């Protein structure tokens, strides 16, 4: 199974291939949103430490298919850490023991003989579709409620036509790296999407193009977040520690600052 890409590591690779890891997986199986799920135990043997976590699940699924069983449903797309689809809870931590996406988590982070618990994101706003796959369209609706700028179409303006201070552009870019994976919600003891919403509010709120809709944006996005049934933020910090992009808690403070300013300026959410 192991593909050694460079000669220098081939000896070590061959050795670990021969040994392989034997793992016990306890995976959440749930047929559809309407039934109750449960943890089911699977043994996976001869796992290469160079596999990603998703590749390990692929190996399990291949076997389940050959055995005539139902493969484990999990979301994934780019498998290069930028799309945010592959969120699962691994051993009680969003995306597992490393602060990255599940596709970028490699089996070398585990030891031979480990038991690994795999669960879907748990939040009433993220209903389980099947097994490990959840519906995160609540986050899309938060974006739809204000996470955009309204601009006329036409020729793209010159990049240097609207100057942005370096400090602001850096902070906005840091916030814009959010991939909407939902790890913040999954890790939050309150199942709050505050870090996600704060990243979007900060990203646009620091840009000159985001100013005209700044007040409406924050009140509408917070209202939509509450409407979706997410919890409230209690500034615990699990979100930021779980975020594969390292979005910081200061974004939440900035959202709160913007919201208070917007409410004082008379902005009210659209009902």
């Amino acid at each position, binding site marked *: 199974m192991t593909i050694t890409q460079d000669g220098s590591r081939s000896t070590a690779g061959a050795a670990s291939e021969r040994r392989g890891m034997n793992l016990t997986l306890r995976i959440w199986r749930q047929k559809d949103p309407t039934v109750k799920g449960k943890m089911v135990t699977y043994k996976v043997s001869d796992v290469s430490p160079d596999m990603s976590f998703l590749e390990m699940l692929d190996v399990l699924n291949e076997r389940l298919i050959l055995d005539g069983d139902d493969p484990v449903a999990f979301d994934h797309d780019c498998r290069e850490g930028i799309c945010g689809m592959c969120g699962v809870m691994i051993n009680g931590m969003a995306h597992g023991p490393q602060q990255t996406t599940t596709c970028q988590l490699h089996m070398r982070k585990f030891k031979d003989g480990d038991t690994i618990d795999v*669960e879907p994101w*748990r939040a009433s706003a993220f209903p389980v579709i099947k097994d490990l796959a959840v*519906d995160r369209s609540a986050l899309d609706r938060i974006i739809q409620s204000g996470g955009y700028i309204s601009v006329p179409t036409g020729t793209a303006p010159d990049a240097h036509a609207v100057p942005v201070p370096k400090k602001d552009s850096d902070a906005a870019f840091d916030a814009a790296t959010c991939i909407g994976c939902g790890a913040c919600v999954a890790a939050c003891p309150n199942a709050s999407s505050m870090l996600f919403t704060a990243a979007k509010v900060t990203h646009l709120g620091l840009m000159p193009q985001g100013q005209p809709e700044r007040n409406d944006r924050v009140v509408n996005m917070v209202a939509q977040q509450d409407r979706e049934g997410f919890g*409230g933020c*209690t*500034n*615990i910090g*699990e979100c930021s520690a779980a975020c594969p992009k390292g979005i910081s808690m200061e974004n939440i403070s900035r959202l709160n600052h913007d919201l*208070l300013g917007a409410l004082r300026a008379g902005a009210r*959410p659209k009902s």
Partner: protein
Amino acid sequence: MTVTDSGQRRTPKAAKTNSVFKKVVMAVSGIVMLLYLVAHVVGNLKVFAGRESFNSYSEWIRTVGEPAVPSYTVLTVVRIVLIVAVVAHFWAAVSLWRQAKRARPDRYVTKKAVAQSYASRTMRWGGVIVLLFIVWHILDLTTGTVNPDGDASPYDRLVASFSNPFSTAFYVLALILLGMHLRHGIWSATQTLGQSNKRRERTVNAFAIAFSTVLIAGFLLVPFSVLFGLVD
């Protein structure tokens, strides 16, 4: 992202109120109570100036503002402000607690805490215990209802209460819980009121720890002094 069913799935209930607004209520009422605690600890330390000084301070609290306003006026105003703050703080907490419960009805089989502090984890139940403590504390030292020496002067009531090791142990426990509550509360209020950023984060947290430690140490000084016979 995957879309299974579109549109407005849920709970118009939460939409009417705003979770951030509730946090602001929590932060502001918390700050009001915090300022009161500062005044409270300064008053407490008068116990070291002796029985006369402490008892006359207690009398002054009730008569301050006389003869411009009748006695108890200032005290009543302070009490009303505090009751409003406690009710508001409690309302916001319960409401956000329920929202959090609704937001995650099915719990994880395995969940590991990565970043949370003991203080942040104990905000809710710790807050409830602190509330019960405040009720006990008022019955003990303000009204004297549960005090072994209920009809005595404020100073003697205090000595009577803290001469009992069980009473002192309860005070110490509740005060430590309160200290942790303040430690997370100060940080959280700064975030909620939008006054934190990456640069200030370390300072805010250091201040929160220092402030709550000094405040609680000030409060603990009195019961321990009674227990060890420094005040009698």
